[in-house]
Protein backbone atom coordinates (compact mmCIF):
# COMPACT_ATOMS: atom_id res chain seq x y z
CA UNK A 1 0.00 0.00 0.00
CA UNK A 2 1.24 3.49 -0.75
CA UNK A 3 -0.46 5.86 1.68
CA UNK A 4 2.30 8.01 3.27
CA UNK A 5 3.00 7.40 6.95
CA UNK A 6 2.05 10.93 7.98
CA UNK A 7 -1.35 10.51 6.33
CA UNK A 8 -1.84 7.08 7.91
CA UNK A 9 -0.96 8.58 11.30
CA UNK A 10 -3.40 11.47 10.85
CA UNK A 11 -6.23 9.11 9.90
CA UNK A 12 -5.38 6.61 12.66
CA UNK A 13 -5.33 9.23 15.42
CA UNK A 14 -8.51 10.81 14.07
CA UNK A 15 -10.37 7.47 14.10
CA UNK A 16 -9.09 6.58 17.55
CA UNK A 17 -10.16 9.97 18.90
CA UNK A 18 -13.64 9.46 17.49
CA UNK A 19 -13.85 6.04 19.08
CA UNK A 20 -12.62 7.32 22.45
CA UNK A 21 -15.39 9.93 22.27
CA UNK A 22 -17.79 7.05 21.54
CA UNK A 23 -18.78 8.86 18.36
CA UNK A 24 -20.55 6.14 16.39
CA UNK A 25 -20.88 8.09 13.17
CA UNK A 26 -18.07 10.27 11.93
CA UNK A 27 -16.81 11.41 8.53
CA UNK A 28 -13.46 10.35 7.11
CA UNK A 29 -13.40 12.11 3.76
CA UNK A 30 -15.40 15.18 2.79
CA UNK A 31 -16.50 14.98 -0.83
CA UNK A 32 -16.47 18.64 -1.78
CA UNK A 33 -18.05 19.41 -5.14
CA UNK A 34 -17.44 23.08 -5.91
CA UNK A 35 -19.15 22.78 -9.29
CA UNK A 36 -20.90 20.29 -11.58
CA UNK A 37 -19.45 21.63 -14.82
CA UNK A 38 -17.16 19.23 -16.67
CA UNK A 39 -15.20 19.14 -19.90
CA UNK A 40 -16.20 15.51 -20.45
CA UNK A 41 -19.56 13.73 -20.59
CA UNK A 42 -18.72 10.17 -19.59
CA UNK A 43 -21.36 7.51 -20.14
CA UNK A 44 -21.09 6.17 -16.60
CA UNK A 45 -21.37 9.56 -14.88
CA UNK A 46 -24.61 10.87 -13.42
CA UNK A 47 -23.12 14.06 -12.01
CA UNK A 48 -23.38 16.54 -14.84
CA UNK A 49 -26.94 16.28 -16.13
CA UNK A 50 -28.22 19.71 -15.09
CA UNK A 51 -29.60 22.81 -16.79
CA UNK A 52 -27.04 25.31 -18.04
CA UNK A 53 -27.62 27.83 -15.26
CA UNK A 54 -26.78 25.16 -12.66
CA UNK A 55 -23.66 24.08 -14.55
CA UNK A 56 -22.49 27.70 -14.65
CA UNK A 57 -22.77 28.06 -10.86
CA UNK A 58 -20.09 27.21 -8.34
CA UNK A 59 -19.47 27.46 -4.63
CA UNK A 60 -17.35 30.29 -3.27
CA UNK A 61 -14.08 29.48 -1.51
CA UNK A 62 -15.70 30.72 1.71
CA UNK A 63 -18.60 28.27 1.30
CA UNK A 64 -16.13 25.44 0.66
CA UNK A 65 -14.03 26.27 3.72
CA UNK A 66 -17.10 26.61 5.92
CA UNK A 67 -18.17 23.11 4.85
CA UNK A 68 -14.67 21.76 5.57
CA UNK A 69 -14.69 23.26 9.06
CA UNK A 70 -18.23 22.11 9.75
CA UNK A 71 -17.47 18.54 8.70
CA UNK A 72 -14.07 18.19 10.37
CA UNK A 73 -12.90 15.21 8.28
CA UNK A 74 -9.11 14.90 7.97
CA UNK A 75 -9.26 14.31 4.21
CA UNK A 76 -11.00 16.34 1.52
CA UNK A 77 -11.70 14.93 -1.90
CA UNK A 78 -12.55 17.49 -4.57
CA UNK A 79 -14.49 15.86 -7.38
CA UNK A 80 -17.18 17.57 -9.40
CA UNK A 81 -17.62 18.25 -12.26
CA UNK A 82 -14.04 18.90 -13.21
CA UNK A 83 -12.38 20.81 -10.35
CA UNK A 84 -9.70 22.28 -12.59
CA UNK A 85 -12.53 24.24 -14.26
CA UNK A 86 -13.36 25.83 -10.89
CA UNK A 87 -11.98 29.37 -11.15
CA UNK A 88 -10.90 29.43 -7.48
CA UNK A 89 -9.27 26.00 -7.39
CA UNK A 90 -5.77 27.37 -6.65
CA UNK A 91 -6.81 29.49 -3.64
CA UNK A 92 -9.13 26.74 -2.37
CA UNK A 93 -6.39 24.11 -2.42
CA UNK A 94 -3.92 26.52 -0.78
CA UNK A 95 -6.39 27.17 2.05
CA UNK A 96 -7.02 23.46 2.57
CA UNK A 97 -3.32 22.66 2.62
CA UNK A 98 -2.78 25.48 5.14
CA UNK A 99 -5.40 23.74 7.31
CA UNK A 100 -3.41 20.48 6.98
CA UNK A 101 -6.20 18.67 5.25
CA UNK A 102 -5.13 15.83 2.97
CA UNK A 103 -6.56 16.89 -0.38
CA UNK A 104 -7.35 14.59 -3.27
CA UNK A 105 -8.04 16.74 -6.30
CA UNK A 106 -9.97 14.37 -8.58
CA UNK A 107 -9.36 15.38 -12.15
CA UNK A 108 -9.56 13.99 -15.65
CA UNK A 109 -6.24 15.84 -16.13
CA UNK A 110 -7.19 17.39 -19.46
CA UNK A 111 -6.29 20.80 -18.00
CA UNK A 112 -3.64 19.61 -15.56
CA UNK A 113 -0.53 20.52 -17.54
CA UNK A 114 -1.94 23.95 -18.37
CA UNK A 115 -2.87 24.69 -14.74
CA UNK A 116 0.50 23.50 -13.47
CA UNK A 117 2.26 25.75 -15.97
CA UNK A 118 0.14 28.65 -14.70
CA UNK A 119 1.63 27.99 -11.25
CA UNK A 120 -1.74 27.43 -9.56
CA UNK A 121 -0.42 24.78 -7.17
CA UNK A 122 2.58 24.15 -4.94
CA UNK A 123 3.77 20.61 -4.20
CA UNK A 124 2.84 19.45 -0.70
CA UNK A 125 2.45 16.19 1.16
CA UNK A 126 -1.15 17.33 1.73
CA UNK A 127 -2.00 17.59 -1.96
CA UNK A 128 -2.47 14.71 -4.35
CA UNK A 129 -3.81 14.86 -7.87
CA UNK A 130 -6.12 11.89 -8.18
CA UNK A 131 -6.31 11.35 -11.91
CA UNK A 132 -9.30 9.58 -13.41
CA UNK A 133 -7.93 6.67 -15.43
CA UNK A 134 -10.34 3.90 -16.34
CA UNK A 135 -7.75 1.56 -17.82
CA UNK A 136 -5.42 1.50 -20.79
CA UNK A 137 -5.87 3.92 -23.71
CA UNK A 138 -8.64 1.99 -25.45
CA UNK A 139 -10.70 1.35 -22.30
CA UNK A 140 -10.19 4.83 -20.88
CA UNK A 141 -11.11 6.72 -24.02
CA UNK A 142 -14.19 4.55 -24.39
CA UNK A 143 -15.21 5.15 -20.76
CA UNK A 144 -14.88 8.92 -21.10
CA UNK A 145 -16.51 8.90 -24.53
CA UNK A 146 -13.70 10.83 -26.19
CA UNK A 147 -10.58 9.73 -27.96
CA UNK A 148 -7.26 11.26 -26.98
CA UNK A 149 -8.09 11.85 -23.32
CA UNK A 150 -5.82 9.03 -22.12
CA UNK A 151 -2.82 10.66 -23.78
CA UNK A 152 -3.74 14.06 -22.33
CA UNK A 153 -4.01 12.51 -18.86
CA UNK A 154 -0.63 10.81 -19.21
CA UNK A 155 0.91 14.12 -20.25
CA UNK A 156 -0.64 15.81 -17.21
CA UNK A 157 0.55 13.08 -14.86
CA UNK A 158 4.11 13.30 -16.22
CA UNK A 159 4.14 17.06 -15.76
CA UNK A 160 2.80 16.83 -12.19
CA UNK A 161 5.35 14.17 -11.25
CA UNK A 162 8.15 16.19 -12.87
CA UNK A 163 7.19 19.14 -10.70
CA UNK A 164 7.23 17.03 -7.54
CA UNK A 165 3.51 16.61 -6.92
CA UNK A 166 1.89 13.55 -5.43
CA UNK A 167 -0.15 11.77 -8.11
CA UNK A 168 -2.54 8.89 -7.66
CA UNK A 169 -5.00 7.38 -10.10
CA UNK A 170 -8.68 6.67 -9.62
CA UNK A 171 -10.16 3.85 -11.67
CA UNK A 172 -13.80 2.88 -11.99
CA UNK A 173 -14.46 -0.60 -13.30
CA UNK A 174 -17.47 -1.66 -15.29
CA UNK A 175 -18.87 -4.95 -16.52
CA UNK A 176 -16.70 -6.35 -19.30
CA UNK A 177 -13.43 -5.11 -17.81
CA UNK A 178 -10.57 -7.49 -18.51
CA UNK A 179 -8.45 -8.60 -15.53
CA UNK A 180 -5.40 -9.05 -17.75
CA UNK A 181 -5.79 -5.63 -19.36
CA UNK A 182 -6.19 -4.10 -15.91
CA UNK A 183 -3.00 -5.79 -14.74
CA UNK A 184 -1.25 -4.28 -17.77
CA UNK A 185 -2.72 -0.93 -16.74
CA UNK A 186 -1.33 -1.33 -13.20
CA UNK A 187 2.12 -1.97 -14.71
CA UNK A 188 1.79 1.08 -16.92
CA UNK A 189 0.82 3.35 -14.02
CA UNK A 190 3.71 2.07 -11.93
CA UNK A 191 6.10 2.61 -14.86
CA UNK A 192 4.80 6.14 -15.06
CA UNK A 193 5.72 6.68 -11.41
CA UNK A 194 2.36 7.37 -9.78
CA UNK A 195 2.31 7.05 -5.99
CA UNK A 196 -0.62 4.65 -5.87
CA UNK A 197 -3.84 3.57 -7.52
CA UNK A 198 -7.42 3.62 -6.32
CA UNK A 199 -9.94 1.14 -7.66
CA UNK A 200 -13.68 0.89 -7.34
CA UNK A 201 -16.54 -0.75 -9.15
CA UNK A 202 -18.88 1.78 -10.75
CA UNK A 203 -22.28 2.73 -9.42
CA UNK A 204 -25.35 2.68 -11.61
CA UNK A 205 -26.49 6.28 -11.29
CA UNK A 206 -30.11 6.46 -12.29
CA UNK A 207 -29.25 9.50 -14.44
CA UNK A 208 -26.18 8.02 -16.09
CA UNK A 209 -26.63 7.30 -19.79
CA UNK A 210 -25.03 3.86 -19.53
CA UNK A 211 -27.18 1.61 -17.34
CA UNK A 212 -26.07 -1.67 -18.88
CA UNK A 213 -22.46 -1.99 -17.89
CA UNK A 214 -22.38 -1.77 -14.11
CA UNK A 215 -20.87 -4.61 -12.16
CA UNK A 216 -23.09 -6.72 -9.94
CA UNK A 217 -21.69 -8.17 -6.71
CA UNK A 218 -20.73 -11.64 -7.88
CA UNK A 219 -19.06 -10.30 -11.00
CA UNK A 220 -17.22 -7.74 -8.88
CA UNK A 221 -15.82 -10.51 -6.67
CA UNK A 222 -14.75 -12.52 -9.71
CA UNK A 223 -13.09 -9.60 -11.49
CA UNK A 224 -11.20 -8.30 -8.46
CA UNK A 225 -10.13 -11.81 -7.44
CA UNK A 226 -8.72 -12.40 -10.90
CA UNK A 227 -6.96 -9.04 -10.93
CA UNK A 228 -5.57 -9.01 -7.41
CA UNK A 229 -5.20 -12.58 -6.12
CA UNK A 230 -1.54 -12.63 -7.09
CA UNK A 231 -0.54 -8.96 -7.07
CA UNK A 232 2.87 -7.83 -8.16
CA UNK A 233 4.89 -6.26 -5.35
CA UNK A 234 5.39 -3.15 -7.43
CA UNK A 235 1.67 -2.42 -7.63
CA UNK A 236 0.84 0.25 -5.06
CA UNK A 237 -2.71 0.99 -4.03
CA UNK A 238 -3.63 4.23 -2.31
CA UNK A 239 -6.50 2.72 -0.37
CA UNK A 240 -7.31 0.32 2.43
CA UNK A 241 -6.20 -3.24 1.64
CA UNK A 242 -9.31 -4.47 3.44
CA UNK A 243 -11.45 -2.62 0.91
CA UNK A 244 -9.69 -4.41 -1.93
CA UNK A 245 -10.16 -7.71 -0.09
CA UNK A 246 -13.85 -6.84 0.28
CA UNK A 247 -14.08 -6.38 -3.48
CA UNK A 248 -12.44 -9.80 -3.84
CA UNK A 249 -15.16 -11.31 -1.63
CA UNK A 250 -12.98 -11.88 1.43
CA UNK A 251 -14.92 -9.59 3.78
CA UNK A 252 -18.64 -9.05 4.25
CA UNK A 253 -18.84 -5.33 4.95
CA UNK A 254 -21.83 -3.06 5.38
CA UNK A 255 -21.93 0.42 3.90
CA UNK A 256 -20.88 3.47 5.93
CA UNK A 257 -22.77 6.16 4.00
CA UNK A 258 -21.80 8.94 6.44
CA UNK A 259 -18.09 8.12 6.01
CA UNK A 260 -17.71 10.27 2.88
CA UNK A 261 -20.32 13.05 3.23
CA UNK A 262 -20.92 15.22 0.18
CA UNK A 263 -21.29 18.99 0.04
CA UNK A 264 -22.19 20.95 -3.07
CA UNK A 265 -24.21 23.99 -4.12
CA UNK A 266 -27.43 22.22 -3.09
CA UNK A 267 -26.22 21.59 0.49
CA UNK A 268 -25.27 18.39 2.36
CA UNK A 269 -26.38 15.52 0.18
CA UNK A 270 -28.45 12.68 1.66
CA UNK A 271 -27.45 9.95 2.18
CA UNK A 272 -24.16 9.65 0.29
CA UNK A 273 -22.05 10.72 -2.64
CA UNK A 274 -23.98 8.50 -5.05
CA UNK A 275 -27.62 8.84 -4.05
CA UNK A 276 -29.43 12.16 -4.11
CA UNK A 277 -32.43 11.82 -1.86
CA UNK A 278 -32.44 15.38 -0.58
CA UNK A 279 -30.23 17.97 1.07
CA UNK A 280 -29.63 19.18 4.60
CA UNK A 281 -28.63 22.76 5.26
CA UNK A 282 -25.99 21.84 7.86
CA UNK A 283 -23.68 18.90 8.45
CA UNK A 284 -25.24 18.41 11.89
CA UNK A 285 -28.68 18.21 10.32
CA UNK A 286 -27.39 15.68 7.77
CA UNK A 287 -25.95 13.44 10.49
CA UNK A 288 -28.89 13.73 12.86
CA UNK A 289 -31.88 13.60 10.54
CA UNK A 290 -30.88 11.18 7.78
CA UNK A 291 -32.57 7.79 8.13
CA UNK A 292 -29.31 5.87 7.87
CA UNK A 293 -30.97 2.52 8.58
CA UNK A 294 -32.65 2.75 5.17
CA UNK A 295 -29.34 2.47 3.31
CA UNK A 296 -26.68 -0.17 2.77
CA UNK A 297 -26.58 -3.68 1.37
CA UNK A 298 -28.53 -5.28 4.21
CA UNK A 299 -31.22 -2.58 4.34
CA UNK A 300 -33.04 -4.10 1.40
CA UNK A 301 -32.87 -0.78 -0.43
CA UNK A 302 -32.79 -1.64 -4.15
CA UNK A 303 -30.49 1.31 -4.86
CA UNK A 304 -27.90 -0.11 -2.45
CA UNK A 305 -28.22 -3.79 -3.40
CA UNK A 306 -25.27 -4.04 -5.78
CA UNK A 307 -23.28 -1.05 -4.63
CA UNK A 308 -19.70 -1.77 -3.52
CA UNK A 309 -18.31 1.66 -4.25
CA UNK A 310 -15.37 2.99 -2.23
CA UNK A 311 -17.18 6.05 -0.87
CA UNK A 312 -19.42 3.75 1.16
CA UNK A 313 -17.23 0.75 1.86
CA UNK A 314 -13.73 2.15 2.25
CA UNK A 315 -14.74 3.92 5.50
CA UNK A 316 -16.02 0.55 6.73
CA UNK A 317 -12.71 -1.05 5.79
CA UNK A 318 -10.72 1.64 7.60
CA UNK A 319 -12.96 1.35 10.65
CA UNK A 320 -12.52 -2.44 10.66
CA UNK A 321 -8.76 -1.95 10.90
CA UNK A 322 -9.24 -0.11 14.17
CA UNK A 323 -12.11 -2.00 15.79
CA UNK A 324 -10.95 -5.60 15.46
CA UNK A 325 -7.69 -7.48 15.92
CA UNK A 326 -8.60 -9.47 12.81
CA UNK A 327 -8.90 -6.26 10.82
CA UNK A 328 -5.69 -4.81 12.20
CA UNK A 329 -3.80 -8.05 11.56
CA UNK A 330 -5.08 -8.30 7.98
CA UNK A 331 -4.20 -4.66 7.30
CA UNK A 332 -0.68 -5.00 8.70
CA UNK A 333 -0.09 -8.24 6.80
CA UNK A 334 -1.26 -6.79 3.50
CA UNK A 335 0.71 -3.59 4.04
CA UNK A 336 3.94 -5.45 4.84
CA UNK A 337 3.69 -8.24 2.29
CA UNK A 338 1.77 -6.54 -0.52
CA UNK A 339 -0.49 -9.60 -0.68
CA UNK A 340 -4.25 -9.31 -0.61
Amino acid at each position, binding site marked *: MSVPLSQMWTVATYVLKQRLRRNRRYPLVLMLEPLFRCNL*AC*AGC*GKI*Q*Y*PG*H*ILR*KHLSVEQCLAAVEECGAPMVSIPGGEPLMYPEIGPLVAELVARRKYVYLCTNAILLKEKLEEGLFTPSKYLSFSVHMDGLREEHDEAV*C*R*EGVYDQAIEGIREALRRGFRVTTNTTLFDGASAIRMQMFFDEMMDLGVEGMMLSPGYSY*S*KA*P*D*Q*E*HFLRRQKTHELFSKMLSNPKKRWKFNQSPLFLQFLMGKWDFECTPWGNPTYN*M*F*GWQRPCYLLQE*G*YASTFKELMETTRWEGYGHKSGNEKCKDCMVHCGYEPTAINTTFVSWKGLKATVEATLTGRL
Partner: protein
Amino acid sequence: MGSDEHTLEGWDPGPIDGEALAEVVERAFDYRGDVTVVRRDGAELIGYLFNRNADGPAPFVQLFAAAGGDPVSIPYADIHSIRFTGRDTAAGNSYAAWLRSREAAKAAGPARGA
Protein backbone atom coordinates in the same frame (compact mmCIF):
# COMPACT_ATOMS: atom_id res chain seq x y z
CA MET B 1 -31.75 1.16 -20.67
CA GLY B 2 -31.24 4.87 -20.95
CA SER B 3 -33.52 7.47 -19.48
CA ASP B 4 -34.87 8.62 -22.87
CA GLU B 5 -38.07 6.60 -22.53
CA HIS B 6 -38.99 8.11 -19.17
CA THR B 7 -38.71 11.82 -19.69
CA LEU B 8 -41.34 14.08 -18.18
CA GLU B 9 -40.31 16.98 -20.37
CA GLY B 10 -43.36 19.03 -21.32
CA TRP B 11 -45.61 17.45 -18.69
CA ASP B 12 -48.24 19.72 -17.14
CA PRO B 13 -50.17 17.92 -14.42
CA GLY B 14 -52.49 20.93 -13.91
CA PRO B 15 -53.63 22.33 -10.56
CA ILE B 16 -52.52 20.05 -7.72
CA ASP B 17 -52.74 19.74 -3.98
CA GLY B 18 -52.57 17.13 -1.21
CA GLU B 19 -51.08 13.77 -2.17
CA ALA B 20 -50.97 14.66 -5.86
CA LEU B 21 -48.85 17.71 -5.04
CA ALA B 22 -46.46 15.61 -2.96
CA GLU B 23 -46.13 13.14 -5.83
CA VAL B 24 -45.50 15.81 -8.45
CA VAL B 25 -42.94 17.46 -6.17
CA GLU B 26 -41.10 14.13 -5.92
CA ARG B 27 -41.06 13.84 -9.70
CA ALA B 28 -39.88 17.42 -10.05
CA PHE B 29 -37.12 16.73 -7.53
CA ASP B 30 -36.01 13.75 -9.62
CA TYR B 31 -36.25 15.72 -12.89
CA ARG B 32 -32.97 16.98 -14.41
CA GLY B 33 -34.42 20.03 -16.08
CA ASP B 34 -36.05 23.31 -15.08
CA VAL B 35 -39.65 23.41 -13.94
CA THR B 36 -42.12 26.25 -13.68
CA VAL B 37 -43.71 26.57 -10.27
CA VAL B 38 -46.99 28.48 -10.31
CA ARG B 39 -47.95 29.95 -6.96
CA ARG B 40 -51.52 30.29 -5.77
CA ASP B 41 -51.29 34.05 -6.34
CA GLY B 42 -50.47 33.41 -10.01
CA ALA B 43 -46.76 34.29 -9.79
CA GLU B 44 -44.47 31.94 -11.70
CA LEU B 45 -40.89 30.92 -11.00
CA ILE B 46 -38.80 29.04 -13.54
CA GLY B 47 -35.88 27.15 -12.04
CA TYR B 48 -34.22 23.94 -11.02
CA LEU B 49 -36.00 22.24 -8.11
CA PHE B 50 -33.10 20.72 -6.18
CA ASN B 51 -34.61 19.94 -2.81
CA ARG B 52 -37.81 19.39 -0.95
CA ASN B 53 -38.76 18.63 2.63
CA ALA B 54 -42.13 17.01 3.04
CA ASP B 55 -41.58 15.86 6.61
CA GLY B 56 -41.62 19.06 8.63
CA PRO B 57 -44.61 21.01 9.89
CA ALA B 58 -44.37 23.33 6.86
CA PRO B 59 -43.24 21.29 3.82
CA PHE B 60 -41.30 23.29 1.23
CA VAL B 61 -39.41 23.02 -2.04
CA GLN B 62 -36.15 24.79 -2.91
CA LEU B 63 -35.20 26.03 -6.36
CA PHE B 64 -32.37 27.85 -8.06
CA ALA B 65 -34.14 30.32 -10.35
CA ALA B 66 -33.01 30.15 -13.97
CA ALA B 67 -32.60 33.92 -13.76
CA GLY B 68 -29.94 33.48 -11.06
CA GLY B 69 -29.57 34.39 -7.41
CA ASP B 70 -29.72 32.52 -4.14
CA PRO B 71 -31.98 29.50 -3.60
CA VAL B 72 -35.69 30.25 -3.20
CA SER B 73 -37.93 28.30 -0.80
CA ILE B 74 -41.62 27.87 -1.57
CA PRO B 75 -44.03 26.24 0.89
CA TYR B 76 -46.13 23.39 -0.51
CA ALA B 77 -49.16 25.37 0.65
CA ASP B 78 -48.33 28.15 -1.84
CA ILE B 79 -47.99 25.88 -4.88
CA HIS B 80 -50.81 25.83 -7.43
CA SER B 81 -49.05 23.73 -10.08
CA ILE B 82 -45.68 22.57 -11.38
CA ARG B 83 -44.98 22.31 -15.09
CA PHE B 84 -41.99 20.41 -16.48
CA THR B 85 -40.98 23.13 -18.90
CA GLY B 86 -37.20 22.81 -19.17
CA ARG B 87 -35.21 20.36 -21.25
CA ASP B 88 -34.61 17.04 -19.50
CA THR B 89 -30.80 16.99 -19.49
CA ALA B 90 -30.71 13.30 -18.57
CA ALA B 91 -32.71 12.31 -21.65
CA GLY B 92 -31.63 11.79 -25.20
CA ASN B 93 -27.95 11.11 -24.57
CA SER B 94 -28.00 7.39 -23.97
CA TYR B 95 -24.91 5.21 -24.12
CA ALA B 96 -26.39 3.49 -27.15
CA ALA B 97 -26.71 6.86 -28.87
CA TRP B 98 -23.07 7.62 -28.09
CA LEU B 99 -21.97 4.26 -29.47
CA ARG B 100 -23.94 4.94 -32.67
CA SER B 101 -22.39 8.38 -33.07
CA ARG B 102 -18.90 6.96 -32.46
CA GLU B 103 -19.38 4.28 -35.08
CA ALA B 104 -20.72 6.87 -37.51
CA ALA B 105 -17.72 9.12 -36.85
CA LYS B 106 -15.30 6.22 -37.34
CA ALA B 107 -16.98 5.33 -40.60
CA ALA B 108 -16.67 8.97 -41.72
CA GLY B 109 -12.88 8.99 -41.46
CA PRO B 110 -9.87 9.21 -39.16
CA ALA B 111 -9.99 12.97 -38.41
CA ARG B 112 -12.54 13.33 -35.66
CA GLY B 113 -13.13 15.00 -32.33
CA ALA B 114 -15.29 13.96 -29.41
